[in-house]
């Protein structure tokens, strides 16, 4: 199987997010950047499929030079190759822009893949847009938010999470699948893997080389505001005999907050 895994560099989930109000951007200093957590499930699934069925796993990221670090992590986990699509533009929050870049990369540089794996969303932009857009641009079927994936010949069966249950989706390959927590338990890189990854090249391709012009790359999202939510005020804290505090809480929820 020829598998592509798309990964994104994001601030880790313990990060406190600060805003630079003038530029309406997130302050990056002091943030610890990692591979987006859902992308780890995607890379793990790719490696397991390769181990079961043979083939290659290629990890791809769109971003600045710093994204090479997460591609090295993928190589250390066991990916065969990596590709960095160099995009120096700041976060645009426009999923279609990213999807166009990825779709073009696949057409020009990575043709012939059987499976395109993504995390169900990047942690941060939280758009959950790019994989389904790539699928549409490339004319591929998709299963998003997948917790179980089985491949049999040229078809795949995926279980995807929906409200109060699951959908079983049957796809013919090539297809796009996005990983949800629960799909697998991602492995840690081994020391051997880390050392080997250091020696592997991380080739880059530029947007220019992909033939993408200003119109393809323009963001259609015009940011008018970026704010942190108003801090919640600490409320009434009840201490003492549980029988009394419970009675008081129920009274407050019913008569003051009016939520029950």
């Amino acid at each position, binding site marked *: 199987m020829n598998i592509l895994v798309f990964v994104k560099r994001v601030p880790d989930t313990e990060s406190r997010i600060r805003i630079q109000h003038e530029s309406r951007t997130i302050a990056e200093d002091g943030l610890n950047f990692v591979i987006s957590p859902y992308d780890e499930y995607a890379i793990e699934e790719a490696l397991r499929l390769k181990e079961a069925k043979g083939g290659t796993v290629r990890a791809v990221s769109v971003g600045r030079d710093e994204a090479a670090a997460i591609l090295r992590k993928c190589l250390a986990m066991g990916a065969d190759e990596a590709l960095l699509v160099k995009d120096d533009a700041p976060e645009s929050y426009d999923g279609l822009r990213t999807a166009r870049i990825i779709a073009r990369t696949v057409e020009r540089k990575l043709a012939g893949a059987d499976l395109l794996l993504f995390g169900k969303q990047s942690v941060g932009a939280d758009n959950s847009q790019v994989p389904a857009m790539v699928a549409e641009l490339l004319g591929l079927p*998709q299963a998003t938010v997948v917790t179980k994936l089985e491949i049999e010949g040229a078809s795949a069966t995926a279980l995807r999470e929906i409200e109060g249950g699951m959908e*079983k989706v049957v796809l013919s390959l090539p297809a796009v699948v996005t990983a949800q927590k629960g799909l697998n338990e991602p492995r840690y890189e081994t020391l051997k893997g880390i050392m080997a990854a250091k020696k592997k090249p991380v080739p880059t391709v530029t947007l220019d080389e992909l033939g993408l012009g200003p119109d393809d790359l323009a963001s259609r999202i015009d940011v008018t505001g970026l704010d942190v939510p108003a801090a919640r005020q600490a409320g009434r804290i009840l201490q003492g005999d549980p029988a009394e505090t419970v009675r008081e809480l129920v009274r407050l929820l019913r008569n003051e907050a009016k939520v029950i």
Partner: protein
Amino acid sequence: MIAVYLETRDGKIKKSSLEALSEAKRRAGELGVAAAAVLVGAAVADLAPGAHALGAAKVYIIEDRALGDYSSQAYAVALAGFAAETKPSALFFAATARGKDLAPRVAARLGASLASDCTKVAVKDGTLEFTRPIYAGKAFLSFRLKSSPLLATLRPNVFPLGEIAGSGGETVRIDVTIPEGVVRGRVAEVIKEESAELDVTEADVVVSGGRGLKGPEAFSLLRDLAAVLPRAAVGASRSAVDSGWIGHQHQVGQTGKTVSPNLYLAVGISGAIQHLAGMSSSKVIAAVNKDPEAPIFKVADYGIVGDLFEVVPRLTEELKKALAE
């Protein structure tokens, strides 16, 4: 015209879709345009009155046998075809599992950008401005879309349902052909959770447990409590899920679900930043924790400092009594 795709499940329109239609109706009123609804499926025309009642002037029906089982590819062809024919200025979806699966495909097909999981839609300078949480709610982004139609998914449980006022209205059939060979993936089966539990994103009350529960057994205390309240669901912190005490579909937080119920009750949850991100847009937060210094108390409207194993069963009993009155 602001059109809304109405998602159907088990022969009914999803509440989240009706919320999106209600919001479309309000903003359309401000803009002086009409609100409309779109139903897609094998046999959905009977559902049109539900949309008319919420103020949709027109309900568009796209019926085809090929649209019986959900397929993101076939539905994207149908909705993009609808948009090309009727030229709505905006098209909304509910940000449900299906909405998130389908809207980006429609967007890519139309070459238009998409506002995902919006929590606010406003009219500014004669156009729509969208606000959505990023970093699971650690920040909020407001923006306009510079492509057409304006495409957005609206977060469930955020936008109030409109008054049931209208009755009757126009029903318009749209013919869409799904070309042979285009559809290479579709839903073969829908598997319902045995307990048919309400999803945390759709619940009015979320009762969540964390590390303080000390094991999977104590979640039964939370389930008992949730069973007393209408439309309540059980949630969990990441550490409870990672310890294997409860399934990840219950996880609230930055690598789980973001919820905004009327009441969020955090039990034995300290309040790590990635958890707070997923629940701090709840209307009212109550917390039970034995540590008076737990960060959760800094965001809670009400809190009880105490042993959850003593507090929760009592709370269940008190709530039963209060609701019986």
